[in-house]
Structures are given as structure tokens and as C-alpha cells.
């Protein structure tokens, strides 16, 4: 009896192990995952990124969030009779880093559009494609239709600046991102705000 019981226990244990092995082994491919030898995984896009002190995804997200909230709260948008038409112009990069400032304006535009409080006209950079599409659909472009393309209520411009100080022990970088809402007819600056970011990196005392 004891021997039989032992055999059954052993068989159950082996079966359990096999089942676990099969489950763990087949778990991946059954959901269609293709995995290489390296360690690649998905992360949370909103996680704070501090790989180094260079401009990164967290800076982009913080800037876009802060500027969008500020712009939406301004009376030119919040108290507008109807959603104004805005065109995003260039945000100039005056830093010592190759920052894609288009990523900043793109993110702000997405967030502003989601709010439903503004309307956007195509960027000047994208106008060529708009014209190409129009030419494709219309053999002759009418003047009044062209006027609609230029009929902007406001434009948004800005700059990104940075100050970096480095010693053997510490590297400190300060970013100042400034955006302005400008009336293209009067050139009046209706709204402006800034986002400041400071990052410091200390050098380890001992290392390989």
C-alpha cells in the first residue's frame, strides 16, 4: 500500500512538474510573442526617466502638460466665444543639445486638441502636403479657399534654452522653455508662460 501510495505521489509530482513545464514553456508562444535572446520589455511611458541629464521623455511630458494647462486657462482660450484657430510655429532650440522641438509642439497640440477648446491649422512645415492634397483633389485652386488656410486667430511660438555647469564632481543643467501666444495681425503677445527644469548628476567617488 505504502509503495503504491509512494508511486502515485511520485507520478503526480512528475505530472505536475511536466504540466508546469509545458505551461511555462508554451505560455509565451501561445499569445504570439516573438522574443530574442536579449532582455527587451515594455515599460510605462509615463515613468520618470533619469538615464542621464540630457533632455528626455520626462522633460517633454512635463513641459507639454504644464504649458497646455496654462494655455487652456488663459482667457484667450477659456473665454473665447468659439474655439480659436491656432497655428503652431517653430519653437527655437537655443540649447547645446540636439532637441527635436517639433516633439514638444506636437505633444502640446495633441493635448490641446483633446480638450476641444481650440482648432488647429496645419503647421507651415506641413502646408506643402496640404497644398499637394488640394491640387490632387482640385484642378484649380480658388483664392478664397487659400485664404481659409491663412486665416489664423493666433500663432504659438517659443524657445528652449539651457545653462549647463560642469565640474569634476557634478553636472548641473537648467532648461527654460518659453511659449507665447501671438496675435498675427497686431503682433501682440497675448499669453506667455515658461517651464523650468533643473537636473543634477553627481559623479561617483569610486568606480571602474
Amino acid at each position, binding site marked *: 500500500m505504502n509503495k503504491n501510495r509512494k508511486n502515485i505521489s511520485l507520478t503526480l509530482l512528475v505530472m505536475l512538474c511536466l504540466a508546469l513545464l509545458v505551461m511555462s514553456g508554451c505560455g509565451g508562444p501561445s499569445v504570439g510573442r516573438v522574443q530574442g535572446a536579449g532582455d527587451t520589455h515594455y515599460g510605462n511611458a509615463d515613468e520618470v526617466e533619469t538615464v542621464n541629464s540630457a533632455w528626455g521623455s520626462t522633460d517633454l511630458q512635463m513641459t507639454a502638460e504644464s504649458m497646455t494647462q496654462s494655455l487652456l486657462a488663459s482667457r484667450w482660450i477659456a473665454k473665447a466665444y468659439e474655439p480659436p484657430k491656432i497655428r503652431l510655429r517653430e519653437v527655437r532650440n537655443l540649447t547645446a543639445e540636439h532637441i527635436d522641438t517639433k516633439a514638444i509642439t506636437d505633444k502640446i497640440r495633441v493635448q490641446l486638441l483633446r480638450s476641444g477648446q481650440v482648432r488647429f491649422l496645419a503647421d507651415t512645415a506641413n502646408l506643402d502636403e496640404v497644398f499637394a492634397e488640394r491640387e490632387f483633389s482640385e484642378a484649380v485652386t480658388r483664392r478664397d479657399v487659400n485664404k481659409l488656410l491663412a486665416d489664423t486667430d493666433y500663432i504659438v511660438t517659443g524657445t528652449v534654452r539651457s545653462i549647463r555647469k*560642469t565640474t569634476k564632481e557634478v553636472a548641473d543643467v537648467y532648461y527654460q522653455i518659453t511659449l507665447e501666444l501671438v496675435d498675427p495681425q497686431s503682433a501682440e503677445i497675448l499669453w506667455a508662460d515658461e517651464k523650468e527644469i533643473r537636473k543634477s548628476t553627481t559623479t561617483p567617488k569610486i568606480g571602474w
Partner: protein
Amino acid sequence: MAILKNIRQHSLPHILPLLLLLTLPGAFGCSSRVSTEDIRTELAYGSYETLTEKMQAAHEAHEEFVTALNLARVLQLQGRWQESIEIYEAGLTLLEEYERRAIINMRELLGEAGSILISRGSLGYYGTGYERTLLHTFNAMNYVMLGDFSGAAVEMRRMEQRQEVWLAEEEYRLREYAEKRQSIGNPASYDDEPESLPGQYSMAELLRDPQVRALANSYQDPFSYSLSAIVCRLAGDEEYAGVSLRRAALLDPAAGDMFSAAWGPGKGVARQRANQTQGLPSYDNWTPNIPRRAKKASAATQEVTVMIFSGLAPALNLEQIRIPAPYIGYLMIDLPSYIGSVRGNAPTVELLAPGKSASAASPRSSAASAKHLAAHPLLRIELLAYRTLRDEVRYEIGSAIARAIFRAATAGAAYAVARSNDDTQAFAGLIGLGVSAIMDLVASGTSSSVRNWELLPAAGFLSMGAVPRGSCLRVTLGADEAEIDLPGEAEGIIVMISQITTSKMRVDYVAY
């Protein structure tokens, strides 16, 4: 003597294998590098493509700073701007990793120990001040040629920041050197001026050259700041353009004169220096004029900027010198020296009226009536290299003597240990000789890693001015000549000309 005895009795069997182990990877790693001779041969008789392939293989096999710089430059010489940018960035990543290393870094300490005891080649090479500056300057030219002035301006701002790091590093090194001098207790034996250099040292005269001494420092050049002023203005950053321009003029008044003539005089230029009679203007309190860009082609003239690079920078290697030493007669020391600089040709830039280009029956015949644009030699890489060596030669001599003494002492100790043992007594001389030969082998192996950015030009010239629209520009460099018909509708044109050897002149330009 007590140290020698200690080494002899206890440490030698442990120290020597360790040091050999540390330096061997350097010795064998170098085999994948493209040698200076190979570079020179390919440049003179081969093709840039072959050289690129060799360098790409070396870069992939042995990822290091100087290989990346040379590869980036050879790509640039072929007009492969985007690829060149990528390799400059790869070099920069290596440099930044080095700059971020721990304050007490074991790798560096071992390298330092190896450089003092075995060979100078044990030290990792991360460029000198001027090379780190020019990394950004030359990368900025890639962006310029792609018409991306904003990207070029970023590189010029990075150039200035890089100098800050270099200054901190140099300050640290100088402080260490001063402390060493203090600990020696006889500062008088170390002259502040390298006048007491060994007589056989081939660099001795060059390091004392008045032109080398006259440089403000070893890492700033007026060309980089002039380029910074040009590209920052084009990128719409007039404030930074003004700051750069002031720095260029302070480093070389000729740069100030050139910009004053092209962009307007600005304010605060003292027409004559108080202590000089040569009539040179002083730019100490200068507020330069940064003209706004002409958005419309209204004027009869257009801007033209010509950058000309000629020749080849000297290559760094180690030179064996025999210096007198008490008791043993002499010591063989190895000091860094620069060899094989290819002096480039001085350019002439002529301006021909529209329609007077190569189609004219005899282009040379119109030379008499042509207007000349002055080409200013604002980048003197040879001088910057010599100045760097001049600043560091005292430290180099100290390390070289320490290396020589250690090598001699180790061979001597091995001989003494062998003699004291009955089994090896008969071969003591052979053992001593063998140890000495092994150390020499390792030293010579690692010595080949003493390299610099060899593909830099020897000199860079800048020429600029307003010219009648659609003019023809004729640039002559020795026997080579190029004519460029400037596109008349453009606001301005930036021309880049490179000539390393005769018959290999490359002309590129970008209109804006």
C-alpha cells in the same frame, strides 16, 4: 635602494605579471587600428573609399575615441555628411562616458600606473583640448552642409561647454603636477618654461617657437568662434553670435577685422592698441554688429563665406631619446612627438564677374581684373598641437624618466634574484636580458596606441564678404583650382573646400 631590495625580495614575482597583464590587452588591441603609414599611403596614392573601409573595420573591432574621429573626418571628406554626424556622435558618446567616470577610477589609476611604469600607451586617449573643441566644429560643418544651421549652432554651443570640462580636467592635472613638485621639495629643478628640454628631442625647437608661445591656450581657436558667429546668426541666435564673434576677435584681431568689413564695424573698437605701434585695432571692448538676415533678395549683392582646409595635421608618436644619468651613464626615455605634418597650400580666393567662369576662353587671363577676397588663416592646428605638448612636456619627461628607471630596475632585480638562486645562477644574465626584452616588447606594443586625430587639416582659412549676385568664385590651392558659379537667387552661400594633397581638392557648398 630600499625599494629595489623590497622589489627584489618580495614583490617582483607578483608585480611584473600583473603589470604585463594590464598592458597586454593594449598591446594586442592595437593590431586592429589603421596605422599612420597606412593612412598616409591611402591618402596619397589610394582612395578615400578604401581608407573608409579600413577605418570602419577598425572602429567596429576597436571602438575608441580617436578611431571614431578619424573615421568621421574621412567620411566628411567624401561629403557623406549624415554618416559623418553619426560617427562623430559615437565618438562623443565615448568621450562623455569618460567624462562621467568616477573621481577615483580604477581603470584610469591602472592606466596611470602602467603609463608611469611600462609604457605611455597604457593611458586611454580621449583627445586633447583642441581635438575636443574641433570635434564639434567639424561636426557643425556637416550640419552646415546639410543646410541645418540650428543643428550647427547646437554643435557650437556644445563646443564651448566641452571646453569647460577640459578646463576642469586640465586644472585638476595642473594641481596634481604642482603638488608633485611640492613633494619633490626642489621646485627649482623643474623650469616653468620648457627651455631645459633634452638636446636630441626633435620637438625642442618647435616648442620654443614664438608663434606657439603666443597662442592664448591650447584649446581655443578663432576659426571655431568665427564659425559659431556665422551659424548662430543664420540660426536666429544673434546674441550668441555676438558673444562668439567677440571671442574670435580677442583670440585673433584679424577675425574682428574680417567681420567688421563684412558685417559692419560695430561699436567700441579702439583703433590702436595703447602699447603697440602697428595700428592693430583692439577688440577688448567691442560690441560687434550682427546684421539681420535679408529675408528677400533685394540687394544687388549676396553673402559668401568660404572655408578652406589644407594639409594634414601632424601625427603623434613616441620618440626614443638618450639622456645622461648618474651611475648607469644614460637612460633611454620615450617622449611624445609630432611627425609628418603636411603643410598645406595657402589659398587665393578670386571673385569673377557674373558670366566670367570656366566657360571663358582663358580663365587665368581674367585674374588681373579679378577682385580678391582675403583668406585668413584662423585655424592653425599644428600650432595648437605643439602648444598642447609644450604645456604637458614637463609632466611627460617626469613620467618617461620614471618608466625608464622602473624598467632598468626590474631587469636588474630579475638578474639579482636569478643570481642568488643556485639553479638559475648560470643563466642570470640571460634572465635579466629576457625580462628586459619582454618589457620592451610590451612597451613597444602599447606605444603604437599613442595616436591623435591625424585626419585634421594642418590649417583652416576663412574668407567672407558681400559679392555681386551670381558671381563666380575661383579658389586656387597650389596647382589645384576650382570655380564655383554662385546661385544668384540665394541670400548667401557657404563654400567648403578641402585639400589634403594636390589633385585631391573637394568643393562643396550650401545656399540659404
